[in-house]
């Protein structure tokens, strides 16, 4: 059965985040009327930094951080390249223990946590930041997929029996260097004995528009750009569909890992569920 390999220190898996850092990412999420003041780039950076924090915490045990995953962030705007900052600058993939020990900086933020008696309490938490928001230039999506393929081809060769990599592509606009379909398909052809690489696409909008989440085999998307992103998105494995259904998404059989006009909450849920290991040992 595909996607059932145990994720262990001997056979780690891999997450790669491909992040659109083009100029339009400086606009507010959902447009000026949305009441959101932060730019899409800022919100995405907060969401992905928080997700990286959660991945480190999942791997953290008594003795330290176990290398269950290799993780990378590739940004694309004027140029395409690794987006992690600080001591990890220039690194395309890093073991999660290295990620844990080398954030760009650690901020202190306040969070509401359950108090164990049905209420909540505010607590100060350390919030590591690995990359800062960037928003300028074009949207070279073809180059971004090509670079992801280059990085992950080496990874699957080194880890032939591992759970295959999952690529989360977050974008707000159309490709400025041509149709990325072939580059994305080439990326999706990478595989391990446990299955093919999964490519999930999350489109976020500068306009308040209807969100389309995890469409099935016949989504009826009129927008050709949405149709293209749907076409290059992988099917969701059953375990992920089940988790999404528990969060209220339809995610019917045949649903793909694709959201169009995603709200921040949908992006957070999808990234959380997509990086939730069911078979961590």
């Amino acid at each position, binding site marked *: 059965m595909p996607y059932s390999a145990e994720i262990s220190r001997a056979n780690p898996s891999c997450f790669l985040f491909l992040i659109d850092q083009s100029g339009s990412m400086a606009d507010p999420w959902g447009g000026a009327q949305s009441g959101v003041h932060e730019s899409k780039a800022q919100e995405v950076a907060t969401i992905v930094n928080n997700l990286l924090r959660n991945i*480190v915490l999942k791997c*953290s*045990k*008594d003795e330290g951080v176990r290398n269950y995953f290799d993780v990378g962030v590739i940004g694309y705007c004027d140029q395409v390249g690794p987006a992690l900052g600080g001591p990890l600058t220039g690194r395309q993939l890093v073991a999660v223990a290295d990620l844990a020990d080398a954030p760009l900086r*650690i901020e202190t933020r306040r969070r509401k946590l359950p108090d164990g008696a049905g209420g909540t309490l505010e*607590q100060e938490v*350390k919030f590591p930041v690995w990359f800062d928001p960037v928003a300028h230039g074009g949207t070279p999506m073809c180059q971004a997929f090509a670079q992801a393929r280059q990085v992950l081809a080496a990874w699957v060769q080194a880890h032939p029996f591992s759970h295959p990599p999952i690529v989360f592509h977050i974008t707000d606009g159309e490709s400025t260097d041509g149709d990325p379909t072939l580059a994305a398909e080439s990326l999706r052809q990478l595989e391990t004995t446990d299955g093919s690489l999964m490519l999930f696409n999350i489109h976020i909008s500068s306009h308040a528009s209807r969100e389309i989440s995890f469409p099935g085999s016949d989504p009826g998307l009129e927008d050709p750009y949405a149709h293209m992103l749907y076409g290059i998105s992988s099917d969701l494995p059953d375990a992920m569909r089940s988790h999404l259904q528990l969060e209220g998404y339809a995610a019917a059989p045949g649903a793909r890992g694709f959201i169009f006009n995603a709200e921040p909450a949908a992006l957070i849920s999808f990234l959380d569920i997509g990086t939730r290991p069911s078979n961590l*040992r």
Partner: protein
Amino acid sequence: MPTCCALFLPKAGSSAQEYEDAWACEEDADTGGWRLGLADGATESSFAGLWATMLVRSYAQGRWHPDAECQEELDSLRRRWQRIVTRRPLPWYAEAKVQAGAYATFLGLAVDGGLGGAGRWRAVALGDSCLFQLRGRKLLAAFPFAAEADLPWRPAAVSSRPGSDVAFATAQGDCRPGDSFLLMSDALAHWCLGRAERRGRPFGSLLHLAEAGPKRFARWVAARRRAGELRNDDVTLLVLSSREAASWRRS
């Protein structure tokens, strides 16, 4: 002469130090009664093995019983856990894990009067570790779950966070000379209940293994894992019985 034996293994690929189940077994020399505790530290939390060990030791030593008011003793254990894990400065991720607390499922069995004569047993559970009472080959009681499908996907667990509420399930019954009690953590409970539903004889096999000792048990677990019958998780089996043969390990 009743004997308690314990068989336990970490996940395949993990070291003995990474085993996060915990067990304890104490006999009251005056009354001949027994107290057994088994806890399964949650993989997602840190310092869960320590928390599980503290829970079972405290229970087996009779310092708390969930039938009675146990909040004070649990809170005292929680404060001790917090002191131990924060003795040295922690990196940001370990600090966050301590803030989130450790979690462990818990199963406790108290047998009054021992197995040498008629007596009573009481059990408490939170989570998916299971207890089975056997009389000869007959299964008399299964607690807290009697069917594989009933085992929860996300079991409840005892938290190390101060003030957390716990609601234990309880059960009790009679016991006679010759009865056996098997306590096991979730991976083995899944195997056992599934096997029993498919007309297998899991309990007889496990009693045999308890008599044969840890090397045979390790080979058996490895074979079940390879065959995909047993999930790769920490495995613990406690057997309290009046059978003589389990002399290789006595607590």
